[in-house]
């Protein structure tokens, strides 16, 4: 028995491999460990993985260095790293012309350098297919450059059909309409763009935090909040918000989950299946975690949904947990319950 216990302790304290560290969100340590592993024994597969990991945490110089070890096969990866390092001239020499994503980078690099880029839009279209919204956006951009505002508007509209939250397409559409003579319609689109922009900024900020610490539940919850704020602009954001809240909860334990459940319930109540469904979701959580915040919110949702008896019952339970809370007592009185 003692031996088994010792073995278990040893297993727990044994140095973890880079892949395990990565899966646990210990990204910096995983990269260091994989680098050390490669020093011991070179492997093209592991080296490629190291490059990918460096990209994932925005360590582009490290990605460039790691890709060196791949020889000629590392050229496209080096091109990508150089692109992100802002070394566009060098990137252009290495970005493959037969890869759609690389061609998109080529276009951006050429634009940044103030060079001719228009011809590459068709190449990108051929490689990425006829329905890629980024190609639609580039075609819109090209038309804007050439003063073809009506055609630009059509391309930007096509991009928005695929990705309703594409900031460039939304702004481009507004500008194309405005400059093409449809002033009021253009200003309307630009007003909508102005409304959505801070929300997209918040999403971008939350996603960057998540990139750095993907095993941190609060970061997923923050991304969920950002998506929730976008639901009125794009229904597809609802599912993304739900998915993020679910991931957050899976990475959290006990009472720290409560705020995330409350935010999920708010999402459901405001944008999904309504107050009563949200209340039932919270009831489900209450089977695992007894928390006064969950009870009060569930009560609110039941009352909002017209289920007075259920609401009062949740408030009574909340008051039982926190008998001195005057606010709960007041709400219970207002709901017609007894203290």
């Amino acid at each position, binding site marked *: 028995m003692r031996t088994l216990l010792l073995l278990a302790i040893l297993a727990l304290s044994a140095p973890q491999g880079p892949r395990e560290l990565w899966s646990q969100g210990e990204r*910096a340590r995983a990269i260091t460990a994989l680098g050390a592993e490669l020093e011991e024994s070179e492997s093209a597969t592991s080296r490629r993985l190291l490059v990918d990991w460096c990209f994932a945490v*925005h*360590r*582009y*110089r*490290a990605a460039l260095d790691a890709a060196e070890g791949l020889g000629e096969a590392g050229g496209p990866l080096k091109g990508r790293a150089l692109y*992100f*390092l*802002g070394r*566009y001239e060098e990137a252009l020499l290495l970005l493959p012309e037969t890869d759609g994503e690389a061609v998109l980078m080529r276009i951006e*690099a050429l*634009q*940044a*350098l*103030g060079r001719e880029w228009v011809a590459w839009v068709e190449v990108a279209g051929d490689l990425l297919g006829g329905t890629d919204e980024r190609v639609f956006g580039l075609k819109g*951009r090209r038309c804007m*450059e050439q003063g073809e505002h009506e055609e630009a508007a059509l391309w930007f509209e096509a991009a928005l059909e695929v990705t309703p939250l594409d*900031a*460039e*397409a*939304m*702004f*481009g559409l*507004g*500008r194309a309409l*405005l*400059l093409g003579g449809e002033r009021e319609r253009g*200003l309307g689109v*630009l*007003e909508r*763009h*102005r409304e959505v*922009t*801070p929300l997209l*900024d*918040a999403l971008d*900020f939350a996603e960057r935090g998540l990139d*750095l610490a993907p095993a941190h539940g609060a970061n997923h919850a923050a991304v969920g909040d950002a998506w929730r704020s976008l639901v009125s602009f794009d229904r597809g954001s609802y599912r993304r918000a739900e998915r993020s809240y679910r991931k957050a909860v899976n990475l959290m334990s006990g009472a720290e989950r409560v705020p995330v459940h409350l935010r999920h319930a708010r999402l459901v109540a405001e944008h999904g299946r309504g107050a009563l469904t949200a209340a039932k979701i919270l009831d489900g959580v209450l089977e695992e975690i007894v928390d006064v915040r969950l009870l009060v919110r569930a009560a609110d949702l039941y009352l909002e949904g017209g289920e007075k008896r259920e609401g009062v019952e949740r408030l009574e339970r909340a008051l039982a947990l926190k008998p001195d809370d005057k606010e709960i007592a007041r709400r219970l009185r207002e709901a017609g319950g007894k203290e």
Partner: protein
Amino acid sequence: MMRRGMVLLFVCAACSEGAAPELQEQEMGGFGFVDVTGEWGLDFVHDAGVTPEKHLPETMGAGAALADFDSDGDLDLYLIQGGELPVSGVEDDGNTNRLYRNQGDGRMVDATHSAGAAAHTGYGMGVAIGDADGNGHVDMYLSCLGEDAMLFGNGTGWFRDGTAASGVRDERWTAGCVFFDADSDGDLDLYVTAYLDVDLERPTWCGDRKEGWRSYCHPDHYDGLPDRFWKNEGNGTFVDATAEAGLSDSVGKGLGAIPADLDSDGDLDLYVANDSTENRLWVNEGDGTFSDGTILSGTGVNARGVTEAGMGLASGDFDSDGDLDLYVTNFDDESNTLYRNEGGLIFTDVTARWGLDAPTRMPVGFGTVAADLDSDGDLDLAVTNGHIIDNIELYHDGKTHAQSALLLENTGAAFQPVSAGDFGATSRVGRCLLAGDLDSDGDLDLIETACGGAAKIYRNDSAGEGSAASTGGVQASYLGSMLPRE
């Protein structure tokens, strides 16, 4: 212990001024700036008041102003100081702003001791200059982390503190500020941007918890504060006229403001650079009230419809078509942005088309100057750069805290990065940049401040004949101020 840590950090900051990467761009010739800081007697070192808590104000650096404070016909220099942050329990270290008098040939003598209230001890940010009380002498408004100040000059380089009497009161974290006659009544009104609502007593921990990895929080962590517009009553007293002027909706993490006649109707409009939020173009209706022209003009975001971290501003007729264009400096992974004025209050982001995207994509741009630096008749651009995060290398291995300044030569339909002698030859944590003819030789010299580092003067030895004032334009820079040139 904390004091010792600070000293070490400053030593490190000085050490980090390494040689800049060799400029690969085409040599244009014609530009030559020589670092004459020591030779001309400038010995100002900015104290950022760095703490282990990584309060965001420590990253801001501070502004400077060029004006003839002592009425002797040459440009004197006023430099804003930081010092100990205004946190409870921390004594003000008495480190003051400093006023240097020009001896006529560019040599500077520290005259702070005889500058009265200009020896201001607050944690300074920016400065606006102008004749606020209409008596013919240069006055100053100081934006601070804490109480701002209004200083009235008597034309000899001496200032009295007129903050209370002027009616201007602001204790928030203010930043860019500018005097301009908004209502065309002959006196100078004042616009003050406010930045973030930061609680220094309860600093947030940002970045990794590992030792040495604590980082400065992104501005997105904090709420923005509304800017304020102060109307001059004609005698140097001001009233808060933000709402009356139609400027109430100005919550945007403001860092820079520049007045310019952007719709060519004869009055001064206002462009405000906001950090990480939409920039704003306020159109003057002719009577000192403003309407929001941001959406129509397209100057709130870049060509991709994305907000940027607007910091420094310059305006001028870059394409020589008779109207004023706008140049905004931004954060890393964003380019600085050039908006070309198409007329009718429509602007187009021509950054890429004018070759300004790639050279400015990686640095964090702060102060900028639009001026004819090679006296060839068009407006060139100079930009000072430097990251705000002192340990950025830990998080992004391609980025550095100290960065090289940039000089961009106007070639008529594009800009080209050029080497400029000592300017940009050393990596620094640049913040404010001003241009002025300090040695009265007819060309524009450059003054650059650094966050937690020495201010520098670069004498213009560029080739070319012509007058410094030949191209006009409107000048402003990150937190700094120059009197408008005719």
